[in-house]
């Protein structure tokens, strides 16, 4: 199956917060989007230039690159509905 959803997740260090948000996101994606998404996790401590280029102010920040339009949400991604809504996924489904 072709990748339809391209996502970037910015986190800060390998902290409990980073681990939690990654776990939350994977749970959401693996439930309905398994095999059709690609997720790139970026640690702003290791790659600050990428964060600067993307004008990141705070993390966790999740950016949806594809499908358009580009959407960006901020927070711990614990609320599944809000995440899907914020990413405009619901409309696509």
């Amino acid at each position, binding site marked *: 199956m072709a990748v339809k959803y391209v996502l970037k997740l910015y986190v800060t260090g390998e902290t409990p917060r980073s681990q939690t948000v990654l776990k939350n996101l994977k749970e959401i994606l693996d439930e309905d989007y398994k095999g059709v998404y690609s997720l790139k996790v970026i640690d702003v401590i290791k790659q600050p230039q990428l964060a600067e280029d993307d004008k990141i*102010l705070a993390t966790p920040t999740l950016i949806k690159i594809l499908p358009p339009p580009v959407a960006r949400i901020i*927070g711990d991604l614990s609320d599944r509905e809000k995440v899907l809504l914020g990413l405009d996924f619901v409309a696509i489904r």
Partner: protein
Amino acid sequence: MKKLTKKAVQDKIDLQALKESEARFRSIVLWSPDAIIVTDAKGKIEYMNPAAEVVFNRKMESFIGKDFGLPLVNGESTEIDIFRPGKDPGVGDMYVVEAQWLGENTHLITIRDITMRKQIEEKIKQAQEALFIINNKLEERNRQNSLLSEMRELLQSCSNVQEVPAIVISYAVKLFPGTDGALFLLSDSKSDLQSMARWGYFPEDVDSNIFAPDACWGLRQGRVYAVEDMKTGPICPHLKKSSSTTYICMPLIGKGEIIGLLHLGTKRSVQKDDKQANIFELKEIAVMFAEYFSLSIANIKLSEKLTSQSVRDPLTRLYNRRYMDEIIQHEILRAARQQTGIGVVMIDIDHFKQINDTYGHEAGDEFLTRLADFFRLQIRRSDFIFRYGGEEFVLVLPESSIEDTYKYAESLRKEIKNMKINFRDQQLPSVTLSFGIAAYPDHGLDTIELIRIADKALYMAKEKGRDRVVIG
């Protein structure tokens, strides 16, 4: 005009009030220490206050119109990481409300920099963890201490050295978990060490368990010898077969002298695992273990010596009269069970007084000592010889009839005449012995009766001219 002026004045006042009001609110936003960001409904930044520039370490102009991100919370706060290029990341407490601003739906985002508070909280957490570890160590130390005092009490109630190894093993296993070890005692001749207790996978071969003191660096130096890595450190020759990778050898010191050795070895794990025995952490407890053990073993040996002194006559080293009562009593019970007899022979040296008078008491003592050696050589392993007092001895022959006893006494009577005793380059005259025999069950059923009959028979032998055996 007047009316108009009035209205103009009113307008002016209203405008003034509005300006004042706006200035008040503006200054709240401008001077707020919390970062305030206003985004549109999709998360695009419409306004940032000066505090936001400080918190994020970035210029406001470059961010207006850019995407902050759609905050997923409303009416509550959440913790976020603050990214500020060129500086350490911070932690912020983000509070979001959806509000109408200039006639459109917006998010009013307030971010309080709580980096410092988080750092302090982290420090407190670390301090608490450190305290927890110390607490655990204290508890472990308490457990070790109570084990040590248990062991000491048990060792103190040992009546002989044979009881010690089982105690040592059971406590060594609890006190030094994960170790392969052994406890060695120095032999009386001080020529070698022998293991009295072993635990873990300490090798069982002879060379590992019996060795000369100079085969151990710890014993040579008279202090603890520790090797952290057996690949590099000089290894004690007595540990050739050890499978440990790290070990300590701790000499046991009792009354200022080396009395033995405590050896602890373990395989050092590559990872730092708390469950793996760390010999160097156990060293302190090993020192106490060694001290308690050394003290206890010295006491046990001393009390063993005292007991043996109280059953033996100090001059001849033969058993004494007190012990004789115990032995005869014991043999009578055995004979009754097995339906056999016991021969009891009372022996007296004829004219012993003359030796004392002619050659002195020292010669007499020498004579008694040599006579004791003679008896020890002559009697069977199952027989007992006692010094009854003065120049009187009692021979006890278990499982013997009157006839056996008589024959045996006769052989002793003849043999003694061949004994030559020298004292200070002078040969003492040979002596004769008189014998009185009593037998169980023929003459009596208890010690007192048997001794009384044997004594009477001895008296008869003396009366009849000495150098003879008389049956009671």
